[in-house]
């Protein structure tokens, strides 16, 4: 809505709980939203490009960059020797991630040097001209190889345990062991990594970085330059997608650009080509889950003992918290009376895996669904019944493997809704009948729940700051530590501010996230953006509101309780005064119209050593029912219908939340189906472009796609306007696609055997699982 639109007196435009459009929707569709590569380039800007290792694992014997320096357009070449501060960008402080490799190559595509040239094309060409001699070592590409090579762990593993696992397992009437391989995932943010560094006076540098974590980029750059943090400013107005891939992965590009910018005293831009971006940057962790489960003939779980091994890549990065979160979600909605969960964060000679929507949670959770599936086949019962049987209770059977008591369990309600909306039982019967008559094509159906814990498990990250100014014309400037990557954080926080002051949302100016305005921020991650920054912004608004109320009470001599914020005006006693007028009057009376706000999540604590605490403030719930059709000749499939019911508490913005649910589901579906990361025998990632790495396209979405936000619920905790976080949880609704595929495959042997499908379930994996089912069925008939 343009300025000058008359103010509304009945209700403000863009308040909370309304389906307000994304703040940049108009700019997006008009091509007017500016991303970093769209900014006008400062005069004299040079382009930087990284020179990459073309071995996965080697000792560097020699580096000869003469040809690089001599190449057309080249201005300068940088190696580790040119790093003024510390040649390291490890976010953990473990010093395991050099900006430029020096003596050792730990993955294919590791940067060795950077070259600055007048044009990007010149820099790219020159970057290929390094002559590097290697002493090759054997690559350790995957989890099996890492275990075989007794590869070290990149970080301290975690164990979660409750109950006496040994005796519970031994005492269980039935037991089974199995293993599941879960693939990784490339983020495929549409806007690739990019940094634009502009040098300033003294030691200053400003970096426009496409990052979810400006404060960390700031710290890494100051560390690399050897300057205090105050010299480094990071700014990000928006990202063209992040999904976790810009939580730590922006550090490298920003640091390299900053080093070059300070050295050359010129603006420097570094934007890797898509293929190089995919080769260099970390991805979702692949996992192998080895499990033993004890259960009884009814299908009730007695004990779970599982090891979660992850391909972490060459450095720790976020692998510690990611593998932790896998364990935190290894229960999903199910109560494990006795349990032991162990992580095994393995070092491999691959890119360093990192945050990705769900942050290990999806891998842990899909393991839980596999346990359920195994038990269902073993007891010849329906998986949905096994799920329900093992759900956490409300008053009992409600303690997680990390000893947090679940206080907000609404999974039964969610389940009831999804079964009804999807007409699950009737369709399941119809599908069984269809499969009996269909020779080649088979259908499958599955219903899977989600329970996802909200909060950073690193407790100190659960804090946020905001800065709110009101100018004398009544317009508001809003800034906070959260970043906008498409998830609608900015508009949600603006709604909170508009609601707080009761002014139309178009009076609130959303401004770029910058370390200069709000310091020491946490990554916009863990779905926490709105919870934290919304609360911080509200605190800032409340501070200013209190001053305005004090002022008005005094000025018009009315008791404070007779002052109220009405849409676009204040009621002060018997009179109504417009918001701009009050603001103007307050200014004249020398009232401060600017405030910072701060928030920290209450109640949470976590003792990692003991594996005990309350890491999560609350949980978000959801469930999906999904139907697929598979072709038993080729393994091709189609998702024919998906029904979703998802809990977002009292939605702050149902339009944005629905977008997160739909988008998360489709992204999760891609992870479990066509998105396959494939390394060759030399340890080189070969699926590093959209030509070979296949994320879902429009026709992949379910033919029928019913998405419902769970109605009539509120967050039982006083989170921002009783809403719930929504960024990550819906991703895991896609587990239903995977288990529907498994169900279709199982039909080939009359649902007698667990298909034990691995992910991603590419047509190839589906076809081979079909063949395995057929062989098992034939074997049993023969026997």
């Amino acid at each position, binding site marked *: 809505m343009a300025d000058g639109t008359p103010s509304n007196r009945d209700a403000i435009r863009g308040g909370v709980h309304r389906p307000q459009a994304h703040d940049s929707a108009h700019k997006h569709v008009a091509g007017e939203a500016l991303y970093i590569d769209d900014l006008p380039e400062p005069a004299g800007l040079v382009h930087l490009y990284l020179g990459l290792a073309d071995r996965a694992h080697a000792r560097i014997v020699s580096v000869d960059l003469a040809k690089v320096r001599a190449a057309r357009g080249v201005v300068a070449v940088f190696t580790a020797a040119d790093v003024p501060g510390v040649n390291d960008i490890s976010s953990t402080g473990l010093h395991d991630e050099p900006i430029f490799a020096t003596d050792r190559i730990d993955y294919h595509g590791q940067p060795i040097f950077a070259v600055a040239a007048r044009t990007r094309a010149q820099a790219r060409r020159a970057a290929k001209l390094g002559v590097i001699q290697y002493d090759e070592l054997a690559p350790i590409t995957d989890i099996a190889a890492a275990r075989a090579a007794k590869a070290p762990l990149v970080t301290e593993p975690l164990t979660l345990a409750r109950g006496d696992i040994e005796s519970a397992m031994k005492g269980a009437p039935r037991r089974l062991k199995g293993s599941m391989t879960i693939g990784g995932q490339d983020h495929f943010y549409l806007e690739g990594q990019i940094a634009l560094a502009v040098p300033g006076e003294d030691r200053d540098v400003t970096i426009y970085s496409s990052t979810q974590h400006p404060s960390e980029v700031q710290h890494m750059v100051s560390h690399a330059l050897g300057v205090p943090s105050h010299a480094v400013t990071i700014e990000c107005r928006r990202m063209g997608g992040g999904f976790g891939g810009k939580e730590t992965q922006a550090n490298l590009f920003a640091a390299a650009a900053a080093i070059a910018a300070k050295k050359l005293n010129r603006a420097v831009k570094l934007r890797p080509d898509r293929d190089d971006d995919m080769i260099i940057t970390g991805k979702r962790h692949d996992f192998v889950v080895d499990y033993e489960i004890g259960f009884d003939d009814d299908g009730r779980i007695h004990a779970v003992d599982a090891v979660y091994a992850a391909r972490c890549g060459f450095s720790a990065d976020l692998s510690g918290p990611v593998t932790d979160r896998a364990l935190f979600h290894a229960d999903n909605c199910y109560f494990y009376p006795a349990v032991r969960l162990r992580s095994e964060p393995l070092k491999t000679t691959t890119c360093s895996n990192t945050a990705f929507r769900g942050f290990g949670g999806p891998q842990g959770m899909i393991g839980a669904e596999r346990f359920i599936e195994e038990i269902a086949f073993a007891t010849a019962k329906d998986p949905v019944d096994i799920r329900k049987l093992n759900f956490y209770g409300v008053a009992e059977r409600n303690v997680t493997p990390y000893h947090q008591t679940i206080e907000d369990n609404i999974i039964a309600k969610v389940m009831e809704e999804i079964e009804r909306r999807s007409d699950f039982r009737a369709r399941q019967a119809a599908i069984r009948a269809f499969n009996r008559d269909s020779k080649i094509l088979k259908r499958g159906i599955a219903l899977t729940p989600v329970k996802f814990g909200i909060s950073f498990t690193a407790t100190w990250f659960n804090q946020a700051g905001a800065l709110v100014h009101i100018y004398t014309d009544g317009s508001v400037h809003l800034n906070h530590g959260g970043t906008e990557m498409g998830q609608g954080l900015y508009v949600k926080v603006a709604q909170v501010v508009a609601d707080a002051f009761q002014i139309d949302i178009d009076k609130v100016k959303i401004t770029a996230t910058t370390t200069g305005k709000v310091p020491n921020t946490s990554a916009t991650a863990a779905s926490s953006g709105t919870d934290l920054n919304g609360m911080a912004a509200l605190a800032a608004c409340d501070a200013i509101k209190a001053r305005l109320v004090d002022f008005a009470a005094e000025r018009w001599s009315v008791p404070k309780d007779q002052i109220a914020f009405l849409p676009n005006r204040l009621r002060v006693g018997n009179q109504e005064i417009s918001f701009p007028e009050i603001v103007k009057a307050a200014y004249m009376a020398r009232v401060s119209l600017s405030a910072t706000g701060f928030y920290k999540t209450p109640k949470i604590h976590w003792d990692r050593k003991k594996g005990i605490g309350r890491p999560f403030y609350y949980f978000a719930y959801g469930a999906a029912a999904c139907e697929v059709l598979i072709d038993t000749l080729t393994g091709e499939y189609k998702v024919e219908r998906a029904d979703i019911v998802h809990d977002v508490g009292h939605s702050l913005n149902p339009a944005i939340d629905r977008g997160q649910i739909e988008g998360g589901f489709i992204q999760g579906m891609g992870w479990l189906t066509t998105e396959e990361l494939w390394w060759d025998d030399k340890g080189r990632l070969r699926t590093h*472009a959209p030509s070979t790495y296949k994320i879902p396209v429009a026709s992949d979405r379910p033919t029928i796609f019913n998405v419902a936000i769970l109605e009539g619920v509120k967050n039982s905790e006083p989170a921002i306007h009783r809403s719930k976080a929504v960024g990550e949880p819906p991703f895991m609704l896609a587990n239903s696609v995977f288990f529907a595929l498994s169900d279709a495959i199982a039909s080939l042997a009359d649902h007698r055997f667990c298909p034990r499908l691995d992910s991603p379930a590419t047509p190839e994996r589906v076809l081979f699982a079909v063949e395995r089912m057929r062989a098992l069925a034939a074997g049993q008939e023969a026997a």
Partner: protein
Amino acid sequence: MRRTIRFLLGEETREIESSDPTATLLDWLRADARLTGTKEGCAEGDCGACTVAIGRLSGGRLRYEAINSCIRLLATIDGCHVVTIEHLKRSDGSLHPVQQAMAAHHGSQCGFCTPGIVMSLYALWLNEERPDETRIEDALAGNLCRCTGYQPIIAAARGISDFGRRREDPLIANADAIAARLKTLRDEETLLVEQEERRLIAPATVNALADAVVKEPRATMLAGGTDVGLWVTKEMRDIAPVIYLGRVEALKRVEDRGDALIFGAGANHIDVRKALATIHPQLDELMRRFGGEQIRNAGTIGGNIANGSPIGDLPPALIALGATIMLRRGAGRRVIPLEQFFIAYRKQDRRAGEFIETITVPKPPPDALIHVSKVSKRFDEDISSVCGAFLLRRGPDGLVAEARLAFGGMAATPKRAANAETILKGKPWSEESVALAIGCLAVDFKPLDDMRASARYRATVAGNLLRRFLMETTDAAIATRVAGLMRADAPRAAHG
């Protein structure tokens, strides 16, 4: 010889005197014209963030097509109308109906894919007022969105006409005037774009083209650029000198001669699809799934053959149909069966100075059984793991008289299954015979083994496609396809 590139950019006429002959349209738009609404997501034609609409005169008619500006060379838009996201807003600053629909349906989240999606939908809308869902999905197959899951985008696409009328769109309303302006940019002169001895030559007639290729036998021939463009953007190869084929109208002709279809080598995949669809619906489906819409608009049949890829989609189909190609050198021409063109991995029977001029596809007799299957990791907009195209004829005795079983992805070249074909001959068209033929595939082929699919998968699928062929031609009751137009319950809507 003309040395300036001339085109319309929005409402302006642009003339570019000197340019890097291999500069891409995207780089020019973003860096030189400072039109930064068009984005780069991959620089390889696969994500659609760079989509712009290009208007060109085709048989006297003004035709708008979505293309990938990232792999399109600037020089090749000579004589065209370039429309980018910046040109859509109305003169009063209000949003175009396509843009309004996208905003109203919450079709953007991060917004980075959005300009490309808007342009794809715009190009679709210019051609069809109320496209059905399949058409919308086709038009968007080359546009990746990582955020939305596409649902709101499809809703927006269906609802564009709620926000405005197509006939009021400036490009439709002013079509005659635009066509007239484009006509004035057209000539028979050869265009030469040269900088520092690197040049691109774009002849306007076949004869001039034939001369140019003889004169510069080492030049890179450039048609739709959906392969060659990537040599520039991905391999950073210097492809100069370049001979561009796209200005030669005669090369784009598709002709139905009654007993055969004759394709000019420069016919794009949209036009090729329309013609092949008259032979068999599975050919229609094959071409529907070829690349994304932008690739189908730019890519040519000649390029798909000449690149010699073992995983190209048209060669197996054309080989099964018994196509021949005409190679031309200067005034000389020779005709060879297509299958003989492929000698070894990326080695073709193209002599210096030759180019492919036409492709002739004989129409199969009405009793011929035909089958085409493309199997890929992702159903739409993916390269085939295996592509099988089969033609089978039975004699009066009902026994197999002729079998042509062509495969892509199964060898270093597109190739027929010689042993399988032989064993089928004289046998009934039955499960037993198919089993025998499948047994021969292991001799006939050594399939590729790579990130798209393992050799074992390819081998298994190749055999199963013969089973699918048998079932589809002998028992209509068996459903065999999970998606696309060949699904038993698919809407059999004709394409646009």
